[in-house]
């Protein structure tokens, strides 16, 4: 099955909120070998002016990849996940993510470019709190390899 060229411009609305938990921040920080105390210790986070544990700079990938899954798992997209390669990633933080945040992501399919038998697909997740405060914009491109690539 080939990539649906009409994917560009599609918007997948926000799903259930993602609740940012202290233990997930600690777990994710340990997994990327982030050592700053503000990821682990409330007093250290407070010293930097944060009301709760501070998420590492790439933590938003959890929320972004959940949003990307809406596209990848959409039977209409024609994307075979086993042929997906992560090509690029960007995080723009409008404010830091802290424990206690309730985050929702709206996924925009910005561009779809045919490449050989496959395609390069760029998506953008607009991440906000459930009460509408902008938190982060993430942009990523995935390369879906064709059958002969």
């Amino acid at each position: 099955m080939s990539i649906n060229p009409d994917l560009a411009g599609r918007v997948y609305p926000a799903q259930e909120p993602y609740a940012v938990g202290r233990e997930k921040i600690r777990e994710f920080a340990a997994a990327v070998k982030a050592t700053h105390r503000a990821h682990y210790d409330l007093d250290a986070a407070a010293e930097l002016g944060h009301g709760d544990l501070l998420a590492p700079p790439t933590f938003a990938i959890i929320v972004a990849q959940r949003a990307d899954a809406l596209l990848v798992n959409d039977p209409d997209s024609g994307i075979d996940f086993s042929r997906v390669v992560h090509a690029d990633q960007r995080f723009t933080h409008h404010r830091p993510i802290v424990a206690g945040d309730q985050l929702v992501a709206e996924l925009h399919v910005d561009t779809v470019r045919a490449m050989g038998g496959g395609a390069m697909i760029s998506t953008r997740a607009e991440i906000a709190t459930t009460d509408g405060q902008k938190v982060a914009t993430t942009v990523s491109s995935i390369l879906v390899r064709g059958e002969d690539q």
Partner: protein
Amino acid sequence: MIDFDTLEKGQQIGSTTVFVNRADLVRYAGASGDFNPIHWNERFATEVGLPGVIAHGMFTMGAAVQLVTDWAQDPGAIVDYQTRFTKPVPVADPAGTNPSDAAGTAIEIAGTIGALDAEARTARVDLVVSVEGTKVLIKAQAVVQL
């Protein structure tokens, strides 16, 4: 605290090495929710044409920014961070070792000031991230609010 006015373009902020073994990849898979088997199953990785199990690009991206955090002393000051993933980071499974104790693949990270914005008071740190002399990330740039 970093004094913005003393910074110069081209200035080095330091360098570090991060090691990644198979156990680290399992830990990152669980923490991030990215369970793509190319990051933990040798047979599957080989069948899809990879040399073997490779690290999550997002592990490398996430681990590389520690250098910037150490410099800025506040992870919340990193307002923008981007990269392209150019080469896979292979993670071997050496015989005779407990995978949790294996030394793992060395990822070398070095940072320099790539740009300064005096109005916004931001510094862009450009990271060079390589494995055995080959760049695995390109255009790895973190913008720090000072």
